[in-house]
């Protein structure tokens, strides 16, 4: 187990280096710099600003400077949020996004997994059709449409829930529900497929034939085994939540990573773009490592192969 973790960490370093380098190249070869939008600045000041942040040096030199700082854990400074380092901004934004993401994922699991299990157990019946219809709806509605609808109904018409910013627990409800939609639908489809596969196994028939009730068979024998593939999609689920956070944090004005990423791209705030991208990459690597570990833990057959 420990060997696997160490192997994963060693593997992650080159991957992060590639992500950092590609993003660096991508944002630097674009015409236009971070100070272009400040129209009233005289050229001398822009030259001074560029000199201060080493933006006047050749790109390869900037790259080496960046990697040097990165190795020390310094993600650089923001060019737009004056006097704030990228580390500061991320330290504020990351917990917000983490809260939102965790709550949404929990919600998605609580809704998606039972929905998929019900659909599979009642395969071909009314319940299945309804559950699958709902899950197809869930993957077909863009996040901004869900967000706009919820805001319109609960904040504008009914005035029961607040919208925007990140202050009280009530502010969490609408964004979390919006963000949970698509992973819940994804999980429902996955759980259904997984349960359908398990139902046909011999030991399920054995459990039934020894007189176990339908309910017990489903809970103790089917669902437990069909959760293995569900745990192992944490990687794609993290990707879905990150993608969703771009939209959700944008429409609810939540000061999280997704929102800072979007504004950083708009402002060409180089170091902030790189910093957020790297944190997303680290998150995905952690999620995928966890999946590998979970596999070994849940499925003994995987351990023998090692």
């Amino acid at each position, binding site marked *: 187990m420990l060997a696997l973790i160490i192997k994963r960490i060693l593997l992650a370093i080159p*991957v992060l280096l*590639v*992500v950092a380098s590609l*993003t660096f190249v*991508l*944002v630097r*070869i*674009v015409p236009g710099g971070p100070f272009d939008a400040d129209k009233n600045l005289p050229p001398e000041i822009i030259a001074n600003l560029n000199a201060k942040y080493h933006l006047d040096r050749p790109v390869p030199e900037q790259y080496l400077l960046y990697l040097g700082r990165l190795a020390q854990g310094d993600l650089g400074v923001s060019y737009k949020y004056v006097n704030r380092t990228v580390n500061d901004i991320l330290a504020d934004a990351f917990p917000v996004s983490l809260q939102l993401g965790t709550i949404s994922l929990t919600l998605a699991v609580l809704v998606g997994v039972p929905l998929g299990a019900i659909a599979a157990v009642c395969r071909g019946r009314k319940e299945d059709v309804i559950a*699958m*219809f709902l899950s*197809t*709806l869930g*993957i*077909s*509605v*863009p*996040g*901004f*449409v869900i967000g*706009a609808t919820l*805001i*319109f109904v609960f904040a*504008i018409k009914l005035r029961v829930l607040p919208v925007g910013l990140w202050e009280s627990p009530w502010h969490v409800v609408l964004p979390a529900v919006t963000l949970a939609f*698509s992973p819940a*639908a*994804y999980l429902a*489809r*996955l759980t259904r*497929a997984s349960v359908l596969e398990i139902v046909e196994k011999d030991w399920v028939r054995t459990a039934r034939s020894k007189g176990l009730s339908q309910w017990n068979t489903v809970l103790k024998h089917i669902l437990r085994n069909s959760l293995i593939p569900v745990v192992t999609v944490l*990687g*794609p689920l993290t*990707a*879905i939540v*990150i*993608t969703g956070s*771009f*939209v959700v944090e*944008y*429409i609810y004005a939540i000061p999280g990573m997704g929102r800072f*990423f*979007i504004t950083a*791209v*708009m402002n*060409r705030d180089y170091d902030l*773009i790189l910093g957020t*991208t790297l944190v*997303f*990459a680290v998150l*995905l690597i952690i999620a*995928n490592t966890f999946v590998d570990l979970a596999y070994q833990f849940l499925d003994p057959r995987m351990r023998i192969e090692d």
Partner: protein
Amino acid sequence: MEIVEKAPMPVAAPLDQSVMARIKRIPTAYLALWIIGAICVVALLSFMGCSLCQYSFDQTSSDFLAGPSAEHWMGTDELGRDLFSRIVYGARLSIAIGLTTAAVAFIIGTLYGALSGYLGGKVDTLMMRGVDIAYSLPDLLVMILIGVLLGRGTVGILIALGLVSWMGTARLVRAQFLQLKNEEFIEAARAQGQSGWNIVFKHLLPNALGPIIVALTFTVPSAILSESTLSFIGLGLSPPACSWGTLASDGWRSLRAHPHLIFFPSLFIFITVLSFNFLGDGLRDALDPRTRLGKNSH
């Protein structure tokens, strides 16, 4: 973002008239097929310059921000432009983006996956390792970063969508080829001394086509969703370009006072994406030899 289950696709499902007959028996998929057909016809006519509506998409009037009425079915925007006409006009861009992305995914993904799967061995490992890493990144993140470089025009969006969308197809085609290439009929073709080219394009590809088409059916809606999401958060197309995404983005700003401006474009995105997803599900069931067996045994 891909929300298709990564379940193994059935191998060697023949694509013939019986598929159409089976689609007809799945009501959601059959209805979806008609809706997609209708929307594509509207988009095509709009492309050829036919005026389908009473108003032109950019014709302004003094009737600002009117709600839906007999005159303006879906109301008007802040410049008095008829929303229905703009949605019909926007269909061509949204549908074109979806279909072009699927075409790019088909061409690049099939060639890459076919090469990787047919050659196998070290080349295959090397070719797929890169795809695996890129595939695990969120599509939208990659698209936004590519968009920084390419700008926010239609071509930039198309390239960004094309660059991320082929990887799923490539993985699928590779998996199919790896499975198929040890089948007896491929061995027979080899024994006849057929060229590698012939084996790939005449024997392997036609047999892998079913699952590829299913995957492409899911590529179209995910491209439409990605474009509209990018445009919505202000990193995709921007006016004067007119897609369902930019229309929804415009409508968002007046959600409180004029909800119809975001409601109708969203409705069209939703119906189109939903139809493609239902069609994809239906095609997958229709092409799956296991369900075919199940149906016949009754």
